[in-house]
């Protein structure tokens, strides 16, 4: 085992974390496990891919890589747009599907609806973009030494910084702003929050938008790191759930730390047992948490 595992683990953990934050927020505020969250990741990655192509061909912004990264200016401009588009997509899905089931029937039928939506969205993406993988850039990046005998590519370092910045931003938003306070209030007790004058519907819309935007950023990271395929988000779903539960449902820092733990464990497993067993790590982590501490690291006893 080499210390390089730590770098690889932190980077894949950071991208899981971006997805897990949205998942944990939807879970605590809307009170259901959203199985379509992985498709927000996929949707975000494809949106950035399509938008960067449009930006470089129509607006004339360079599609060339910005040294030392292999990321083009067109993609840098496309990412915020893709995040906004994915947020809008999440809101549309809520309007079409989830809002109709809210408060009406058993909570679990919303989970099932999200399950159906996940399949439909994934297959629709496959219909449009085919199942062949796409890439933001085919250029190969060389890992540079970053001290302590570790190596990382400039892309990886940039992603780590962006992921930590986004997570910190969301944490501060929740901890310091009025909107964050209403989100925490709704997650504690929706009826009480409503009575206290919190606009519950608006808070729910904001949760969807935030979750969608973060998932989209995670999707772009996954696309840069590996490739863009219709199943990319679906394959991230179990690690994201494991991270959210490990961190304690509803906790943003918890979800991010949980994701880093899952990412590190994955990197370690890849090193020790081979890359084909990577997907089993999240499951083992999930079972471990449920056995030992079902409320997660940051969670309080129910």
């Amino acid at each position, binding site marked *: 085992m080499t210390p390089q595992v730590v770098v690889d683990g932190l980077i894949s953990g950071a991208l899981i974390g971006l997805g897990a934050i949205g998942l944990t927020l939807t*879970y605590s505020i809307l009170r259901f496990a959203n199985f379509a969250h992985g498709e927000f990741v996929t949707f975000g990655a494809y949106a950035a891919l399509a938008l960067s192509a449009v930006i470089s061909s129509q607006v004339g912004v360079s599609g060339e890589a910005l040294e030392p990264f292999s990321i083009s200016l067109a993609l840098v401009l496309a990412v915020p747009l893709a995040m906004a588009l994915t947020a809008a997509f999440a809101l549309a899905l809520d309007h079409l599907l989830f809002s109709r089931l809210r408060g009406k029937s058993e909570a679990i039928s919303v989970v099932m*609806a999200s*399950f159906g939506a996940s399949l439909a969205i994934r297959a629709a993406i496959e219909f449009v973009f085919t199942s062949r993988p796409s890439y933001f850039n085919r250029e190969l990046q060389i890992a540079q030494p970053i001290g302590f005998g570790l190596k990382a590519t400039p892309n990886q370092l940039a992603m780590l910084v962006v992921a930590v910045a986004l997570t910190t931003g969301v944490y501060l938003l929740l901890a310091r702003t009025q909107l964050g306070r209403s989100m925490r209030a709704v997650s504690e007790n929706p009826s009480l929050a409503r009575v206290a004058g919190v606009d519950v519907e608006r808070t729910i819309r904001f949760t969807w938008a935030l979750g969608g935007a973060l998932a989209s950023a995670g999707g772009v990271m996954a696309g840069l790191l590996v490739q863009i395929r219709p199943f990319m988000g679906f394959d991230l*779903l179990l690690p994201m759930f494991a991270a959210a539960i490990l961190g304690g449902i509803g906790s943003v820092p918890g979800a991010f730390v949980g994701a880093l733990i899952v990412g590190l464990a994955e990197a370690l497993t890849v090193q020790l047992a081979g890359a084909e067993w990577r997907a089993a790590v999240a499951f083992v982590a999930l079972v471990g948490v449920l056995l030992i501490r079902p409320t997660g690291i940051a969670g309080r006893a129910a």
Partner: protein
Amino acid sequence: MSADLVGPIAYASFFLSMALMNGLVCLGLNVQWGQTGLFNVGVAGFVAIGAYVSAILTTPASNIHLGGFALPILVGWAGAAIAAGGASALVGALTLRLRADYLAITTFGVAVVVQLAALNAQRVTGGAFGVAFIPRPFDSLSSSPALYNMANLALVAIVVLTVYFALETLTLSPWGRVLRAIREDERAAMSLGKSPTRYRLQAFALGGALMGLAGAMEAHFIGFIAPENYLSSLTFQVWAMLIVGGSGNNRGALLGAAIVWALWTLSGLVISDLVPATYEARAAALRLVAIGVLLAAMIVIRPRGLVGERALVSRHIGDLDAAATPR
């Protein structure tokens, strides 16, 4: 049998056998979801456990996968049901005391891990090659497809009908009443001294065992299994069957299985006939979109399904009415 009827009869019995085996998975899901309200997102995983266990127990020695036990088919089926039921019981024991969604997430994980093991634990499962030469119950008839398929259909029908009547009896039994009581009002059931976790665990294990049995039967019907038979789209199909037919109703489960399987097969035929080969993968994706939309739309528009659940209390309730009516 005249020659021009052989083809259609062979096909019809093949179709019905497949529909009934899907129906058996659906009956298992109905015990879990319909009767008890337990959400299983890993149906494909439990079906796969059954298929692989039975295949490994019954196949002759092979250098591709674990095997060589060459046990009788019935032993394989029993092993499949026990293994899938046992796996369900483990999952249930882990998650049933927690929030309802944790069961869903964990079963989702089971399906992912089973798929991974089927693909990568090559020395046990044969990896991507799968398991071939699985003994078929009526192999001596295989020279005549119509006879072979009809014999199979008869066997499948006997098993599925037996399970159906057993489940109907269970539904009307005190055990079935407790399950529905827990689903409807957990606290009320607890106040009557019923342990929700224990009953849920039993129902979950029973449903899982039926899924495993169905997986084994299908494996022995086709004679070959591979990891890609057990992707998450199988789970979606089974859910669509139960929701369309009407969850909570065993007849609905079988009806839904037949309808969704027919739509699935028909759309497959249409695609391979009308769509040029280069677009076939895309058309297949569109077929999945349709099933996902069907599932979501059904939940929103008609959550009770085509048949819907009968409001059952006890089969003796009629006697009470009769007794109460003044003569």
